[in-house]
């Protein structure tokens, strides 16, 4: 029954998002929406997915949207035209979809077609073939490793896209001025700064735990990457971007993003050179199960490094752009005075 309550709450939040005109409230509601769906995923036994959604939907995505609305303004203008046409399209499409659900298998039924295809093989044989208890990790990193590789490349490409869109070259003296502005801005909030400083090592440690414990419990490279980057993002928010850039050099982090994808791809090529198929880890070691363990460890590492670096790059690009905008505005104000 908990799922019905959670789903109803999700609908209420979605309606709230439609009606709100204040973008700040909308972004906060989006965070709540992410947290609610994460709770729903836990109720559906999808612990790995819930983990990711909690870190991404309620954490990083809310933050990115907040940074963007500080640059674009938080008020949405009321639209003048009446939305009847849109309402019509939406109602018709929704009606057709409801009609389509009528012969779907009922919720929770064990004999639905989805459970009779490859899933039994994963559940029955993965312990012997891969040798790790978390089936989600063995499917993600071994059975469907090629698929996951594609997805890591998509994340990498999106990161490059953001970098290309928002990268701005700046001179050294400008950099120093920006740093000075930054430091003065971040000197308030003393309590938050001290508490955060104590929390950050534990967040980083937790990320590493999630990274290496993904074989035995919920976790893995994707979740670990997002958690690791959230620690750095937290630091950047409270101590200023230039302080964070001194901790993690942007050039280094760009290198690491590429290195993660490369590490992933190299495991595939190593298995090719050893006479197996692409991403066939059995040939990596004399014992097939040991080979699987090695392969999964390496590619999860690649995924974690890429995801963490790309998330950090994305946040740095947005925050850097915002700094430059503020700097330009300040200069304008000075000139007009």
């Amino acid at each position, binding site marked *: 029954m908990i*799922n019905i309550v959670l*789903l*109803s709450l999700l*609908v209420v939040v*979605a309606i709230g*998002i*439609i009606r709100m005109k204040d*973008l700040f409230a*909308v972004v906060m509601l989006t965070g709540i929406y992410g947290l609610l*769906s994460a709770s729903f*995923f836990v109720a*559906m*036994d*999808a*612990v*790995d*997915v819930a983990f*990711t959604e909690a870190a*991404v*939907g309620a954490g*990083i*995505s809310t933050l990115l949207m907040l940074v*963007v609305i500080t640059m*674009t303004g938080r008020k*949405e*203008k009321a*639209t003048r035209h009446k*939305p009847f046409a*849109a309402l019509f399209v939406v109602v018709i*499409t929704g009606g057709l*979809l409801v009609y389509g*659900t009528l012969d779907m298998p009922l*919720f*929770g*039924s*064990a004999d639905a077609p*989805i459970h009779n295809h*490859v*899933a039994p093989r*994963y*559940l029955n044989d993965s*312990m012997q073939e891969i040798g790790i*208890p*978390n*089936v*989600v990790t063995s*499917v*993600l990193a071994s059975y*469907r490793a090629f*698929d996951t590789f594609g*997805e890591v490349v998509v994340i990498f490409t*999106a990161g490059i*896209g*953001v970098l290309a869109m*928002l990268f701005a070259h700046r001179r050294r003296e400008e950099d120093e001025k920006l740093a000075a502005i930054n430091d003065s801005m971040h000197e308030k909030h003393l309590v938050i700064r001290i508490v955060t400083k104590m929390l950050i090592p534990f967040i980083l440690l937790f990320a590493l735990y999630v990274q290496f414990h993904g074989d035995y419990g*919920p976790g893995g490279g*994707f979740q670990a990457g997002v958690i690791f980057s959230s620690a750095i993002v937290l630091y950047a928010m409270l101590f200023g971007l230039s302080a964070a850039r001194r901790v993690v050099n942007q050039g280094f982090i760009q290198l690491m993003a590429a290195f993660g994808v490369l590490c992933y791809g190299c495991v595939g090529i190593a298995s090719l050179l050893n006479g197996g198929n692409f991403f066939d880890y059995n040939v990596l070691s004399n014992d097939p199960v040991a080979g699987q363990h090695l392969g999964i460890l390496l590619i999860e590492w690649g995924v974690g490094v890429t*995801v963490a670096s790309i998330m950090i790059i*994305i946040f740095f690009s947005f925050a850097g*752009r915002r700094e430059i905008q503020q700097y330009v505005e300040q200069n304008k104000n000075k000139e007009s005075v």
Partner: protein
Amino acid sequence: MLIGLFNNWVVIVLMMSGLYIVIAQGNLIKKLVGLTIFQTSVFIFYISMAKVSGGSAPILDQEISVYSNPLPHVLILTAIVVGIATTALGLSLVVRIKESYGTIEEEEIQQQDNLQNQKENKVEVKE
């Protein structure tokens, strides 16, 4: 049947709310939020399909015999992280649009574009 299909219907309501925001509302950030709602509704659809009643999370253990289906979990887990990366790309486009147009309202952008086009056309006629 009402309970059995309830999840699917909620998914449809959420998906249509997202679609409505994308079609009817002019603010570009609001549109991206609409896309996120749409996207999450698809995640909920997949994960609801994976559930087996009485099953447990797909982490193998001697004492458990019924598990939920792990395959949709894998697909959605990666889709969530890809989703945030592509949303970030969309947000960066919004930032650039704000910088060059001074607004992120669809109608105002359209007006500016129309004015620009009219000017260009006049110049061509003179030449």
